[in-house]
């Protein structure tokens, strides 16, 4: 007797994705006021985009930025020495690539960001003209090489593994002085005076110096502000609040005017050094507050446990609280770096020529006087795009790091 088992007819799960019409109704036309908002916005967007695109196509002044790209990037740095900024940048890229392969995680994200910026700028650089007497690689080729160096370093470090750890740490510690040495020259290389530096290089140098040099000072101030010793705490609070209460312009102004007065024979202090000192002193106060935030986020039990294990105050700080605090504030520090990167444009006010200053100079060149309306719109758009690519990429990195830290807590 054959038994017949009726198989239950299974129904498919209800469709998850919704059709186009459904999506439009839900996201654009759900209520009467949403209908109005959508229609008005569509009209405004279409108007803006079409007029912007037609302006971009017909604008006469694009050549101002692109024929002067060398000024924008390096200002008056000697043409026959241009390989030096490239070498300095390649050095950093290799180190970043190696670190990415070795440590992974957060560092890899930073490296990925740098690679993305390189590739993006590489495509932009296709339009760069070659300069007479140029000893460096063409811009586009160099930017792509940077990306290759990053990925190559990453792969290499993964193969070699932990053996590169200590050499790499030492190389990073030496990287900042090495970059300055390559750019400025001295030992064997012809000296390039800092008054010739400018453009994007100067912007990057100021921003990186601001973070790197202010780091020790900022951490000390943060620790000092949480110290139990009243004299030290008061000093740190006063310093931090004083600096945070005034605009960066005033600090730069002070650096330019008062530093030469403060030091004997200070008239000879280089303008760039003055700006770097001012930016460092300014940035340290903000960095201190960020690090303090990290220190406050460490549960008290960590300190108590460390003390119970017999570590003294210095050991507890260096081995237990500070590493955890710094890890927690990495995204905030990236944020601070972004704002410093943007804020360094203020050095224009004290007479240095950074990316923005170079653009202003180009706009004022006599050969563009004949262009109706001037070339400032095109030129400023180009440098806005450069600033934007950097800041936007870094803010994405910061977001990713933040997400990763949040995930690792659970």
């Amino acid at each position: 007797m054959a038994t017949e088992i009726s198989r239950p007819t299974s129904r498919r799960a209800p469709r998850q994705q919704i059709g186009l019409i459904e999506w439009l109704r839900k996201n654009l036309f759900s209520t009467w006021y949403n209908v109005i908002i959508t229609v008005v916005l569509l009209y405004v967007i279409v108007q803006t985009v079409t007029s912007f695109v037609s302006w971009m196509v017909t604008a006469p002044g694009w050549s101002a930025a692109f024929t002067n790209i060398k000024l924008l990037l390096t200002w008056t740095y000697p043409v026959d020495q241009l390989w030096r900024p490239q070498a300095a940048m390649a050095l950093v890229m290799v180190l970043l690539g190696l670190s990415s392969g070795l440590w992974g995680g957060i560092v890899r994200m930073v490296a990925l960001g740098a690679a993305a910026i390189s590739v993006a700028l590489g495509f932009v650089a296709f339009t760069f003209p070659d300069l007479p007497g140029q000893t460096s690689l063409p811009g586009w080729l160099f930017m792509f090489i940077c990306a290759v160096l990053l990925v190559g370093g990453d792969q290499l470090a993964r193969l070699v593994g932990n053996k590169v750890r200590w050499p790499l740490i030492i190389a990073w510690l030496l990287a900042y002085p090495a970059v300055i040495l390559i750019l400025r020259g001295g030992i064997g290389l012809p000296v390039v005076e800092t008054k010739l530096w400018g453009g994007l290089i100067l912007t990057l140098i100021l921003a990186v110096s601001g973070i790197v040099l202010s780091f020790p000072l900022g951490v000390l101030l943060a620790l000092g502000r949480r110290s139990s010793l009243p004299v030290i705490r008061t000093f740190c609070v006063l310093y931090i609040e004083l600096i945070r209460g005034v605009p960066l312009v005033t600090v730069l102004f002070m650096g330019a005017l008062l530093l030469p007065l403060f030091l004997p024979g200070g008239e000879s202090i280089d303008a760039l050094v003055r700006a770097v000192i001012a930016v460092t002193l300014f940035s340290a106060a903000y960095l201190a507050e960020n690090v303090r935030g990290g220190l406050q986020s460490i549960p008290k039990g960590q300190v108590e446990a460390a003390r119970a294990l017999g570590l003294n105050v210095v050991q507890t700080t260096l081995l237990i609280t500070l590493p955890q605090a710094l890890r927690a504030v990495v995204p905030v520090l990236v944020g601070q770096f972004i704002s410093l990167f943007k804020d360094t444009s203020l050095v224009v006010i004290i007479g240095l020529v950074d990316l923005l200053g170079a653009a202003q100079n180009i706009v004022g060149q006599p050969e563009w006087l004949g262009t109706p309306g001037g070339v400032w719109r095109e030129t400023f758009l180009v440098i806005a795009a450069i600033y934007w690519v950097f800041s936007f990429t870094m803010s994405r990195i910061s977001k990713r790091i933040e997400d990763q830290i949040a995930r690792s807590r659970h």
Partner: protein
Amino acid sequence: MAAGSPPLPSGKVTIPFYRDTRIIAIIVQIVFAIAVAALLWYLYSNMMNGLRQANLLPTFAFLSVPASFPIAESVIPYDPSMTYGRAFLVGILNTVRVAVIGIILATILGLILGIARLSDNWLLRNVALVYVEIVRNVPLLLQLIFWFSLTRLFPRIQESIDVGGLLYLHNRGVTLAWPQAASDFGAWMVWVYGGIVCGVVYYVIRRIQFARRDRPGVAMPQAFLIALGVAVIGFFTTYFVYGAWPVSLSIPELQRFNFVGGVTVTNSFAALLVGLVIYTAVFIGEIVRSGILAVSKGQREAARALGLTPGQTMRLVILPQALRVIIPPLTSQYLNLTKNSSLAVAIAYPDLFYVASTINNQTGQAVPVILMLMASYLSVSLLTSLFMNWYNRRIQLVER
């Protein structure tokens, strides 16, 4: 073996002073204080030496000397025959003017932006996102210079760009319609004072009632509405009896060479205000957005379950709680806007920093000028944070 080991301490253990943390702490602080004082003294004496050689010893005497430089715009009367002190005051007031107007406008735009970022309309949400991402990744100084350059493309005053007859753009600045008080404005204010008195009386009575019944209650909004209502009703009845308004809109009219009526601001001021508002609103928008998101979903659901309407939920449950998260970062954005207004120097708006650097160029008195500059910015920052902290304390959660 035992002979080699030190004898066990008997009785009270005395710690040598160099291992006593209390004494070390005092020594460290004294050394630190001496080091800081020595450094400051070193810098100070260098400075005084240098200045003595340059015959520029710091003095505030220049403050009463005629400034002899013109300032393009001023809130108070000013001309070059007035003193440097007066010029400095003009700079402070110009900074305060752009900061106050900027803070108000940036808050409104930021609020709109923050709510737009949370809209259920996909298009609105993403337009707001694009705006935020473009504006916050480009330096403010570049944006200011961009707006300033833009205002210089405006046509001559005779060919002003007309926006609805109320706003005119031209190469000398922006002229806009502005309310103007009538000559009998003071008499109309009676209604406002009356309204305020009614509101206060109502508030006090309700408070006494709440206290008697020993129950909490809200009286402020109603008192405010009563005050407003009395004033508005009073104004309308007077208007019907009397037939004229106390305030008229002064509409600019183009004469041969200039505008008559309305208010004209320079293009530096217009560019600075637009730049600061557009830039700061982005950060305020993000603060508002995260503040609203920080209120847990359960709060909204509970309020709805208790039968509150969506409007009531927003007004009575979500916003008061979001405000607690919003106020502290909002304060620092207000301070940022005030400090960022110093970038005005790049677009020739005579703010505090611009005036101070002009004074420095003319007198060479770098030290007093910098001291005054920093003291002014610090006091503006301090006043703003005092006010915001007071407000913050008022709205903080009172816990048992």
